[in-house]
């Protein structure tokens, strides 16, 4: 038993066993290192207090027909619009075949006069114009994103430009006829 490591027994046997040990050890080492990286990566995800952000309640009673307000929910603007009859009609009359992201108007509202949606362009996240009376509203009379030219209609659906999707409708409930809770 004076042999050192370099003169191990039968060649095949020793070789394959060592190879196995080497590969197994390196694999465990690599997996372990990869696992150790995860806490670092995950630390960059939203922290517990950020996730715990509460929902937002909005009183609709003061919003006149044809008026919009912007409220903040999870740091994002939410558009709440009291739509006019003409706007509702335009939105309902649009054929699904004309839409980039087809969705009927009634799938986007709980009550036709109230349109509630996240005011963040689905292209690259700018805030579209159209909340104020004298804002640009785009070719479809809804909202217009100035960053790269996305046009949204009176139901907040994408009609023209680079944005791939309609403005998102958040989860919300009517707590009464004039109060909603978002989130």
């Amino acid at each position: 038993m004076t042999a050192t490591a370099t003169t191990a027994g039968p060649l095949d046997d020793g070789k394959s066993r060592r190879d196995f040990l080497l590969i197994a050890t390196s694999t465990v080492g690599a997996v372990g290192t990869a696992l150790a990286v995860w806490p670092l990566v995950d630390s960059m995800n939203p922290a517990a207090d950020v996730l715990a952000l509460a929902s937002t309640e909005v009183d609709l009673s003061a919003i006149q027909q044809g008026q919009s307000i912007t409220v903040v929910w999870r740091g994002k603007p939410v558009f709440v619009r009291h739509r006019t009859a003409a706007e509702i009609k335009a939105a309902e009359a649009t054929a699904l075949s004309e839409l980039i992201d087809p969705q009927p108007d009634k799938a986007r509202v709980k009550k036709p006069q109230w349109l509630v949606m996240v005011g963040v362009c689905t292209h690259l996240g700018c805030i579209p114009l159209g909340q104020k009376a004298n804002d640009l509203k785009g070719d479809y009379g809804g909202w217009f994103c100035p960053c790269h030219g996305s046009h949204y209609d009176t139901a907040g659906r994408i009609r023209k430009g680079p944005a791939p999707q309609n403005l998102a409708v958040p989860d919300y409930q009517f707590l009464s006829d004039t109060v909603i809770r978002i989130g």
Partner: protein
Amino acid sequence: MAAVQWKNPVIKWIDYRLPIFTMVHHDLVDYPTPRNLNYWWNFGSLAGITLVIMVLTGIFLAMYYTPHVDYAFESVERIMRDVNYGWLIRYLHMNGGSMFFLAVYIHVFRGLYFGSYKAPRELLWIIGVFILLAMMATAFMGYVLPWGQMSFWAATVITNLFSAVPLVGEAIVRWLWGGFTVDNPTLNRFYALHFLLPFVILGLVGLHMWALHVHKSNNPLGIDIKSPSDTIPFHPYYTAKDMYGLGIFMTVYLFFVFFAPNFFGEPDNYIKANSLVTPAHIVPEWYLLPYYAILRAITFDIWFIPAKLIGVIAMFASILILVLLPWLDRSPVRSARFRPLYKQFFWLFFVDCLILGWVGANPPDAMLMGKISLLVIGQLATLYYFAFFLVIVPLLGIFERPKPLPESISAAVLKPGAAE
């Protein structure tokens, strides 16, 4: 090369243990350099010096800057108004970013024109592409730090690019933000990375220099060094030439710092970030405009791939394609001086990049003289950009007939009446 005999006993003592003086002598003094380098070869050292200026001014800004959404904007204003020479340090840093990109872009076009990316300098070139990418990331994150309107909306738009990734896009964006929008966690991590990345760049520059010094500089003729008479020592010839170039470069740089410090900036960035109002027209800094134009040029889906994703891929591909260039170009001749066709397509490519920059600076719906849509111009320019690398350059390698090459650098340069 014979080892240097140091006379000073202290230098001798140190050099025996750590041959740092020998190394400097070898790489900056004796270093054999082609004798025919023109002024386009100044921009590498200019970029290096600018990097040092950026790190220095950055450290001093960091002594006063506060990376918090409630204080960042005010802390930068305080640097401008109250800190001794704070305005100077900030303007040096701000305009230094632009000068850095200017120097590096000229440096890259130099490489394209004189074929510096070809064997045996492929890795040198590829390391350079990574330096460019790291610079872009650094500059982008630095631009976010003053927390003005452009800072905030640039951060929003650029991080949202990753939402184009299928399935996990939204998760990636939330991970980048550390929240549901660009907010304090985002500012904090951008600051940490903005501080770190320049040192990564310094490391990459070290590798770049190492690779350079293995096969030495290319030259305007694009032919190899064949004998010592093709070269001159780096010092004093090129140290002097580099210093002269630096004088001119600094004159331009300091002109902007002192007389037009906000020339490259956007007035909107002096308005504090507001997460509920997007400025009417958001644009990146000038050095990112061509990529922005490429991003916006893609307005059509291809099969099932949405336009947004293709735009993002095209934008990243526009830089990464440089990595492949050494293999796309099969022509054995390096310098465009001997490539009559390549030379023309190269200049067209240069103009194409300027056009892309101009398109990127304009609103997406803009029209040229009320008739021609800028979008279409941007699309054609994008087409040429990629066709240059993927079609023109490979075909020229096969079909172009280069002019005869000179026998050697010294034969071409020392011949009476030869051009420099």
